[in-house]
């Protein structure tokens, strides 16, 4: 108070104001800590509780996964407790021995290079489309949506006419199956979901009722049921001779299931586009499909991008359910391998599941990070 009385009050500046450094407490490490971790009593308690939790959980985990882990060895002996090694950690030796089974299942060893080529071709396509400033992304789309599916079938299923012997899908397994199911689900669910969402808003009652009926029915039953139905009921509807492949049935089931969810996600995005956008497009004499494709959907998909990726992540993890109809996806191969008596130890199962968790986490977190970066980029371009 006294200070104010002493200072002459000046409302109009007589000299230019210099740029000053920020006060010390508001920047730098101390400032950050104070602002974010210890800003109030409650916040301080939370910070300390979290720190305690981390200290309690992380060191044992690190010890199990890395420090006490066994990295190589011929059989279970190396992973058992011994006087030299009283507290055995993760048995990575087991994963190493079984790794090719986890990746390829029973895919014949001489033909496994075909799976590797498929992985490389897929990674190349995804990279092409995912890198937003890559050259000729239109060609990339043609590659991913037309060339790649054909190439994949030829490579994986085989094409005896050009010297690639057929490999029936009951030999496929592991990461290969997981990636195939997830990719087909993702690639099919977006376009089918968009069509269903548009159908649901259609002015033609027949189209609308079909779309609503499909979406509500599929969303009303668990994926397991859809898979069982695809597996058990589909053969009832088609002639005996062309009994569809078991994996193909699972692919259809997963794609339909994911499409129904995608339809609802896209519908939310469509509802977020203002009416004025439709009116402006109509006033410019655009017909339905150009209006949707050029004006409405780009905006709708943009606002729902986080939800779309969320659906993809859910789908990726849901692929593990295909084991119920006897398909050996990645998780199922781990399940099968952990029963190997040669590797029966107390830590075998834990190690296998830790490996599975790591695998799913890497893919799902990757998708999530990628979506975040695209969102950031889109919101920047909107405000440019």
């Amino acid at each position, binding site marked *: 108070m006294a200070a104010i009385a002493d200072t002459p009050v000046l409302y109009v500046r007589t000299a230019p104001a210099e740029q000053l450094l920020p006060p010390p407490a508001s920047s730098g490490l101390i400032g950050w800590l104070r602002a974010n971790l210890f800003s109030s009593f409650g916040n301080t308690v939370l910070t300390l509780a979290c720190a305690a939790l981390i200290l309690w959980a992380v060191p044992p985990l690190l010890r199990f996964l890395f420090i006490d882990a066994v990295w190589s060895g011929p059989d279970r002996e190396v992973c058992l407790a011994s006087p030299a090694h009283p507290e055995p950690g993760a048995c990575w030796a087991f994963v190493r021995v079984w790794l090719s089974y986890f990746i390829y299942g029973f895919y014949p060893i001489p033909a496994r290079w075909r799976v590797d080529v498929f992985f490389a071709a897929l990674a190349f396509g995804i990279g092409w489309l995912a890198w937003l400033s890559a050259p000729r992304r239109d060609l990339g789309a043609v590659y991913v949506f037309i060339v790649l599916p054909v190439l994949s079938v030829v490579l994986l299923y085989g094409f005896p006419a050009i010297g690639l012997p057929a490999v029936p899908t009951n030999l496929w397994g592991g990461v290969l199956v997981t990636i195939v199911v997830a990719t087909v689900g993702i690639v099919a669910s977006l376009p089918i979901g968009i069509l269903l969402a548009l159908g649901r808003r259609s002015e033609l009652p027949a189209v609308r009722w079909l779309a609503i009926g499909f979406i509500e029915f599929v969303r009303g039953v668990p994926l397991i049921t859809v898979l069982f139905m695809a597996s058990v009921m589909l053969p009832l509807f088609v002639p005996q001779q062309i009994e569809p492949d078991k994996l193909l049935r699972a692919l259809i089931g997963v794609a339909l299931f994911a499409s129904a969810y995608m339809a609802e996600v896209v519908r939310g995005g469509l509802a977020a586009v203002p009416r004025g956008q439709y009116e402006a*497009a*109509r006033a*410019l*004499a655009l017909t339905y499909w150009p209006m949707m494709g050029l004006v409405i959907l780009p905006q709708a998909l943009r606002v729902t991008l986080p939800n779309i990726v969320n659906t993809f992540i859910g789908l990726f993890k849901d692929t593990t359910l295909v084991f119920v109809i006897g398909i050996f996806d990645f998780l199922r191969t781990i399940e099968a391998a952990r029963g190997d008596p040669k590797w029966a130890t107390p830590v075998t199962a834990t190690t296998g599941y830790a490996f599975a968790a790591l695998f799913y986490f890497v893919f799902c977190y990757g998708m999530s990070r990628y979506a975040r970066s695209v969102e950031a980029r889109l919101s920047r371009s909107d405000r440019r």
Partner: protein
Amino acid sequence: MAMQTPDDFAARNSSAEIAVEVAGLHKWYGEFHVLRDINLAVARGERIVICGPSGGGKSTLLRCVNRLEDWQRGRVVVDGIELTDDPKQILAVRRNVGMVFQQFNLFPHLTVLENCTLAPIWVRRMPKKQAEELAMRFLARVKIPEQAHKYPARLSGGQQQRVAIARALCMNPNIMLFDEPTSALDPEMVKEVLDTMVGLAADGITMLVVTHEMGFARQVADRVIFMADGQIIEINAPKQFFESPQHERTRLFLQQVLH
């Protein structure tokens, strides 16, 4: 105005001098009778200003001209094309009728230039390069060629509305509809948009403008229409309209907007 006889209508319809013909138009929203027996003929090159109290049906009438709204009774003929349920007719009319909205309705995910070239490329099947040249010409005309590569959100309201005008002009329309183009603008931006519209009027394009900018009406309108309760209460040349309105409702309305 009495409803016209079919013969009368056909005669006018064939005349190339009529740009928009509205005859015996009725529209209901549910029970609500929003347009009640509207009859109006707009000559080619004519500039019409429509004003009236809120809820009087001005926007609805304007939106019937390019069939953004449909109606239950009556006929609308634009450029000699009758608007029916036939999508071909509707598209043929929309190709020749540009519309500018109160809220601009630019496409936010496209740049200014892409906003302008979208319809020429996809509706008129114009090559991209030619569409871009055309767009740049109209953007220069509304005096914002330097903003062509920005996204709409980066522009001021007045600039956005001028882009919307350029976007409509790129379809080379014979008729332009404006629905309160300056109502959503801050006062200092109203003039730049009105100036653009005055420039258009000088080109002889047929214009139907819903606005409360009475200065604009005085300056460019050939006729001023006063609408209330879904009816056309008065049509007059601007001089008579403002100086000696025929109807009590018009007089009251003018007292409120002019002071």
